[in-house]
């Protein structure tokens, strides 16, 4: 639901970066988004299409790489990948699982003219 605001943040950040590089149009934006955030890929893609108008990213391609949830038990030294059900209790020792990947919300790179 807040993808429009996030898309606006992205435009602000990449326009600033493009200007600092004395670049013209932005051709591509690459994002990395963790699945354990509240960002929905399709909603963000749609929002970006709307907010990119009249910006340096007007013609930019938009790529989102989604990162699966990865958790870790320090006690057992075991990593768990992409769980269907959010469960942060270690099945072996009942200890807490820490999130290692899946909370990302970042711009990896832009491709500029």
């Amino acid at each position: 639901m807040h993808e429009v605001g996030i898309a606006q943040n992205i435009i602000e950040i990449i326009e600033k970066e493009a200007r600092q590089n004395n670049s013209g149009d932005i051709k591509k934006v690459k994002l990395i988004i963790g699945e354990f955030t509240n960002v929905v890929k399709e909603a963000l893609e749609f929002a970006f299409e709307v907010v990119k108008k009249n910006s340096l990213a007007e013609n930019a391609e938009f790529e989102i790489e989604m990162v699966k949830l990865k958790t870790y038990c320090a006690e057992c030294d075991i990593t768990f990948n992409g769980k269907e059900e959010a469960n942060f209790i270690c099945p072996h020792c009942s200890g807490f699982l820490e999130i290692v990947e899946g909370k990302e919300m970042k711009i990896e790179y832009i491709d500029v003219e």
Partner: protein
Amino acid sequence: MHIVDMNSQILHENERIAHENKHVFEKHGLFVTNLMSAPGAGKTSVLEETIKRLKSQYKMAVIEGDLQTSIDSERIEAMGIPSHQITTGTVCHLDARMVHNALHDFKLDGNDLLFIENVGNLVCPADFELGEDLKVMVFSVVEGAEKPKKYPVMFHEVEVVLLNKIDLIPYSGVSLEELEKNVKEVNPKAVIFPISCRTGEGIENWIEWFKNKISNK
């Protein structure tokens, strides 16, 4: 064409302002609580019950976030507590900048506690830091025992989960045991208090914990 590596956090600006807010709160010796929940779970009622029991010991202020109206803010002011209403329009959460701007309208000096009642929404507020000391979630048991699994991010982010409206358990068929188990799976560190703002059951346990938390800051 060339690639510019960025590795920039999309919410960096929010985090920067949240950090500034935290600094302002610390300077004024304020303990700040961010209250989040779905619409109608009972955030304002929890605030009223909390304020009632702490009024003689602490000076308090409230920031209310809502899409429309100042009904909640009026409820708080009726208790003699200064309250500032942020109406977000269509924005589904409070962000650090909105809180930052609201601080200009407050005399922060002389207050001990600030409560920020977020926009009623089980999703978006969880992604936005405000600079708070404590994140509390209010969840009404009638929303269903499976919700922690369906909306795990907010349950995972908070330190306290208040399971409100336990007086309605006999009418709803919800198992408190199953609900608590689901909360614990999503957030094993969560401190859980079953409460009822209507009957007052369980509220003292939350207040005791909260007072302890404030004095240990």
